[in-house]
């Protein structure tokens, strides 16, 4: 191979002074000699040479072993560089590294995604069971206090509570729920009930309205919530949300997702449960209802009452909107089976409740008592607002 030299520029990394140098392409490396001062000489092994950058005018080379020194070869030096360092300018090494990097990062991301959708939900159950009960109770009390800043308890429910609480406690004992139950009627029009961590249970004014005289339906819903308390589903939901948020925060960096999800994890709309959890809570409800002498079929009536209310609200919406929804449904022609949905199909739940039917052997409240309970949220609130 013909030996060749070239004139170049050089910064030695010690001072900002530019050296005009003559560079020789030796067998094992670059010989660099200052044109002004023959005493100033350097030798760079080819294996240490790095391409810092290249432009139309020049190639800027660095040395992996000598920090900050830069050798600047003019445009036209490609052949000499390629002769001695065939990979340096081709970009093959960089492309290989980049491909490896992307494959590696995509693989890590796939693992993280699996962690998000499988690992965290799977870990939430054992974590919930490992959580000390005192801790969960304190947590539930705090969550309830936070929720009550937005969803107020019914102000004049004392008498109703004095009637219903002993019954709920009896149901909790029968069902071996494992937590003291703190029950509230809350001022919310939507017919619903919630179980927060640590035995906090809330039933809405809307639920009281839709069940009307059917005290068994109301208590069946409470029994279902006690099922969530026993399974510590609220705690699992908390871990799911917090874990998801922390992981996303860690990945995305300072997006605030973790803080928000932790703050939101105590909110009612985050207390969603999986299909399995809902089914399990239904089964616990059947068990509790049987224990206290109430027909589990009452849960089916509660579902029907709630569904009817939702249907009435939909009917009140614009007809045009419903037509559009129906059109979309027909277009899709796909019915999602219950087992694929995150929540059990309501009609299946109704069927299950009917299947568990055994006649009631007792009446939990007298008609007079139930009337008092029904009025828990009916009297005018102190702020005059009717939800």
């Amino acid at each position, binding site marked *: 191979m013909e*030996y060749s*030299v*070239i*004139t*170049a*520029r050089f*910064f030695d*990394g*010690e*001072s*900002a*002074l*530019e*050296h*005009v140098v*003559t560079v*020789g392409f*030796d*067998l*094992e*490396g670059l*010989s660099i*000699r200052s*044109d002004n001062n023959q005493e100033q*000489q*350097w*030798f*760079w092994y080819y294996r240490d040479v790095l391409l810092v*950058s290249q*432009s139309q005018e020049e190639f800027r080379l660095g*040395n992996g072993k000598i920090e*900050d*020194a*830069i050798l600047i070869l*003019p*445009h*036209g030096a490609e052949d000499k560089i390629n002769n001695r360092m065939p990979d340096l300018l081709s970009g093959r090494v960089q492309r290989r590294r980049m491909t490896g990097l*992307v494959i590696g990062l995509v693989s*890590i*991301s796939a693992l993280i*995604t699996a962690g998000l959708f499988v690992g965290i939900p799977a870990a939430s159950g054992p974590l919930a069971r490992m959580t000390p009960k005192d*801790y969960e109770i*304190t*947590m539930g009390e*705090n969550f309830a*206090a*936070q929720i009550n800043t937005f969803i107020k308890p019914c102000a004049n429910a004392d008498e109703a509570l004095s009637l219903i609480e002993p019954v709920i406690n009896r149901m909790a004992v029968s069902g071996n729920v494992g937590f003291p139950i703190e029950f509230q009627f809350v001022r919310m029009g939507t017919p619903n009930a919630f179980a927060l961590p640590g035995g906090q249970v809330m039933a809405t004014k809307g639920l009281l309205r839709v069940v009307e005289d059917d005290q068994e339906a109301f208590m069946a819903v409470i029994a279902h919530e006690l099922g969530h308390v026993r399974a510590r589903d609220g705690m699992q939901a*908390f871990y799911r949300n*917090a874990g998801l948020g*922390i992981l996303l*925060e*860690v*990945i*995305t*960096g*300072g997006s605030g997702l*973790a803080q928000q999800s*932790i*703050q939101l994890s*105590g909110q009612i709309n985050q207390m969603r449960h999986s299909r399995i959890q809902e089914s399990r809570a239904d089964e616990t409800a059947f068990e509790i209802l049987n224990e206290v002498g109430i027909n589990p079929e009452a849960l089916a009536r509660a579902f029907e009452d709630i569904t009817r209310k939702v249907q009435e609200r939909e009917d009140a919406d614009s007809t045009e909107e419903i037509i559009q929804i129906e059109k979309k449904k027909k277009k899709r022609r796909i019915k999602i089976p219950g087992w694929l949905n995150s929540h059990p199909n309501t009609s299946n739940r109704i069927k299950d409740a009917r299947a568990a039917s055994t006649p009631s052997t007792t009446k939990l409240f007298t008609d007079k008592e139930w009337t008092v309970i029904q009025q828990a949220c009916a009297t005018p609130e102190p702020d005059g607002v009717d939800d």
Partner: protein
Amino acid sequence: MAGDFSTPGQSGDHAFSDLNTGDLSADARGATSDRSHLNIENNSRLGRMFWIGFYTTLLNILTLTIFRFWGRTHFRRQLWSDTRVAGEPLEYTGRAMELFIGFIIAIFTFMLPYLGIIYFGQTLLDPGTFLIVIMIVYVILFIVMGVAIFLARRYHLSRTRLRGIRFSQEGSAWGYGFASFGYGILTALTLGWFGPAARINLSRRMWNNAWFGDQKFSFVDTPEAKSEPVYKSFAVAWIGGIVLYLTFIALSIGYGAANGGLFVLIIYGAAIVLGVLFTIFYSWHEAVMIRRILKSLTINDVSLGNRIKAMDILELSITNTFMIIFTLGIGIMPAQMRLWKRIVNAMTVEGELNFADIKQSRSDKPSQAEGLADGLDLISKF
């Protein structure tokens, strides 16, 4: 000295016997540079930055944004090398892996403890105690934000090289954090009026501890710098901001009774128009502040300055906003480049620098990257 010339592989009979000067002649470059006028320029191309922005966005999606460290490094390398000082490009020597590791360290040393406090505070403390705890946490957070800004800046400078010489940042990160917190309090207490003074003082603190090799930068209140209408322009922005805010409130109340669709249309329309108007008011102040700070900088016998105008800021603010919106975020890097390019190309330099006198920085390169700033989402510029 970088190595020994007498090495294996060199054959004396052909060494330097076949001189090929290539495109570069000694005459063209001068034997060795000595005193140089520091003309500063940037010649970044929009297309190149869009390409980096495009593949960074794409790979961010595929990698749950972990690729951002690599994308940011590619962007900086390009931007730095497109910026020339006295004909020589700046070089960014930071590595993406440093950013990534810095971020991981920040997660374990700051972010997870912080999230732990929020977690345990919210779940175990009563709301009153939690409020006190969260207030203390936020005070610490504000101080740490200043620390993070300082550390990020120290990292940027230590990974910036010109003619083989590194820049560096000295001074106390915590000192900067406390100062920025204190100035923040004063700014809040004065309804923003201490803001410009705070910004100047923090810049002074940074630049008085910044170095190029063994040459120190100084932040000097030159007559030219002091002649900038800092508070006049701030007054325009402040009063304009108040008037626009009150207008927005009045519109919200005035059209509150309108039906939903019309109300939303009016509010969004008003927000856009008032936002543009505020940018007009604010652009003058921003241009003044950039000039005020850059006109205060000196190094050795060189004084820096800048000629950026309010119209530059206004035009960039509006066009960059549209560019980012219409490219679904791909245009963020090109937008940052356009601002940088405009500021760099408006730089003025008086005096000459003797490069022969400038020796390498003796500061150690900080191993800490900008992970804390990344964790706190403070990486907004480059």
